């Protein structure tokens, strides 16, 4: 029996080995290296001297680091919850359609998601262009003059958030739609017979039943948006990079522009910790709510 057991262990190990190896080589080792790097003064490429926690001390005093933390947080606030809610609302509207109409509308909402970020940037840069952008019609009506949205500081983050929602909500719609489809129509019929108004049905039936999907979407969004880089980087081109600098962008500028590999690694560790802490925190909170 003992031998048999050992044999099973060997077979089991053999099966998980490829994953463990790949996970170790492609994730654990680089992560460990990143943490190690953050205690050195390494350049972008190549080794550096061990300098202890100096990078972290510097980070706490670094104005631009804190700006990037604030901006990242602001972006998360602007995108995560709106994106989730908009996804849910559109999914609920799409789910009322049937057959090819549903497919068509769904495809239209999903289309932006398959675009690369550079294309999204091009589209919206044109849409908001001060001279030719179609968005200038409503903007001129609101502000009384043509408005360079991505060059106006207070509009920058909201505008990038708006574009991000437009770009990515197709995926959330898809997740929500599959969630909505998994709710049996019987339950809605039972609720209709139970005198539930449309609002009550949403509040007491749809919302609690879709909650696991909502929690998933929120968590995916949170992690994704904490790592925001591309859109901000692209839209800020030719503008003021600092006031809207987000964390990954700051890592990039430290590593690639200033050749400060060690310091960039320290910021990366900070971001890593923030992502882990917030996603665990959020997951716990959301799970707690779901079990109510």
């Amino acid at each position, binding site marked *: 029996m003992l031998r048999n057991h050992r044999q099973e262990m060997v077979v089991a190990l053999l099966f998980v080995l490829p994953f463990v190896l790949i996970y170790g080589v492609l994730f654990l080792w680089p992560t460990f290296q990143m943490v190690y790097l953050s205690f050195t003064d390494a*350049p*972008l*490429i*190549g080794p550096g001297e061990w300098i202890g926690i100096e990078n972290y001390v510097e980070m706490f005093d670094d*104005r631009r680091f804190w700006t990037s933390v604030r901006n990242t947080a602001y972006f998360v606030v602007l995108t995560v919850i709106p994106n989730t809610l908009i996804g849910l609302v559109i999914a609920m509207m799409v789910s009322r359609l049937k057959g090819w109409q549903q497919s068509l509308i769904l495809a239209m909402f999903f289309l932006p998601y398959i675009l690369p970020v550079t294309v999204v940037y091009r589209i919206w840069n044109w849409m908001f262009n*001060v*001279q030719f952008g179609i968005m200038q019609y409503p903007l001129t009506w609101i502000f009384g003059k043509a408005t*360079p949205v991505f*060059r*106006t*500081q207070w509009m920058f983050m909201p505008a990038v958030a708006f574009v991000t929602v437009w770009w990515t909500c197709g995926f959330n719609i898809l997740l929500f739609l599959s969630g909505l489809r998994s709710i049996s129509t019987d339950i809605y019929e039972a609720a209709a017979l139970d005198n539930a108004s449309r609002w009550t049905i949403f509040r007491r039936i749809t919302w609690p039943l879709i909650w696991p999907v909502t929690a998933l979407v929120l968590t995916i969004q949170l992690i994704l948006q904490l790592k925001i880089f591309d859109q901000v980087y692209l839209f800020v*081109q*030719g*503008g*003021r*990079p*600092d*006031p809207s600098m987000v964390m990954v962008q700051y890592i990039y*500028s430290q590593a*690639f*522009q*200033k*050749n400060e590999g060690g310091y960039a690694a320290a910021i990366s560790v900070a971001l890593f910790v923030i992502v882990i802490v917030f996603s665990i925190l959020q997951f716990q909170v959301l799970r707690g709510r779901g079990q109510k």
Partner: protein
Amino acid sequence: MNKIFKLAMLSTTATALLLSAVQAQETVVWWDFLGGGDGVRMKSLIERFNTEHEGEITIEGTTLEWGTPFYSKVQTSSAIGEGPDVMTYHLSRVPLGVDSGALAEISTDDLAAVGLGADTFASANWEAGQSDGKQYAVPFDIHSIVLYYNKDKLAEAGLLGEDGKPTGLDGADNFMAALEQLQPNSEYALSLQTSGDGTPWRVFYSLFGQQDGVFLGEDGTFLPDDSIPKAVSAVETMASWVEGGFAPALTEYEGSVALFTSGAAALHMNGVWEVPTMTDLAAKGDLGFEWGAIAIPTFFDHPATWADSHGFAIPSNGGKEMTPEKKAAVFEVIAWMNKNSLAWADAGHIPAYSPTRDSEEFKTMEPNATYSVLADTAVFDPKSTLAGVASPVYDAVANYIAPAMNGEMSPQDAIDEMKADLQDQAD
């Protein structure tokens, strides 16, 4: 053909013959960031080189995006030994490039072997390619900013002198008066890039230099106290153009060029590298007006204009040594380009190679001749690892000076914050 030029041609041929004797076909991988009108000229130069060196050396050229993308790519690929054999490089960025280990030292003996050295370049230009007394880049040109003008509009406003050149633009007040005269007949009297880095830095540094401002003191202080008022008045002057409605607010590079070429703006401040754009448009008859270019007017105490240089550099490639044959080919490329740089002057630039610059052909070349005086009054970027194209200084310009130009920040605040920011990064 002038004597020196003939000599240069002869030596080229001689070197080529010499090289062909000892080596088989060599391929030189070349990276540049020349994407505009000057890129077209560079491509034809490369073609010419390849034709003349058929069977010996072939340049395989790749053009990458100017600025941060180019330098990030160079930095990373050089570190892992995947860089090109030779590349264009801004001399302003040599300190940063050397500091980050991206550049390989260039032996002056190797240069001397192909006929290049301190005596074939203006000394300031030559030294800009050095760090700690070692050579890391070979100059190729001097480029600066100029004032492009729409001759028709200036004539209407009575701003053309008897020689057909603009007049009465010197002095901040006179310039402002000129803008007022030009404004009624144009959408904008003056177009220039007013967002991001680039032009805002170049114009700022010119106006700052006209007051003998010191951007980086000997002791490593950015904007020493007595230079702050000078910096502020430079920014104030720039801001007054936008504030008065004479220049477009928050306009990017391409837009500022388009405003001028479409005839919407009477004046345009930009680099000499846009000369080919104007030449080509005028040649095709698409410009719709007569254009010219002069040196940036003197707003303050004396003429001074920002300048930078394109040069050639060899990436360190992670310490990988080139074969002697490859090395010879690379030096041949660098030498040939310099010796044929009259064609490059066609792209608006001022050749760095003294024999070319002193040639009769160049001296009569328009509009270069009109603004070639600026070679004498050029102020080069501060020598610092924080300065140069795609550097923290450029970023700081986008963050502080550009907003101040658009009235989003007071000039005083902009300078104070820029100083604090750069000092912070230096320490």
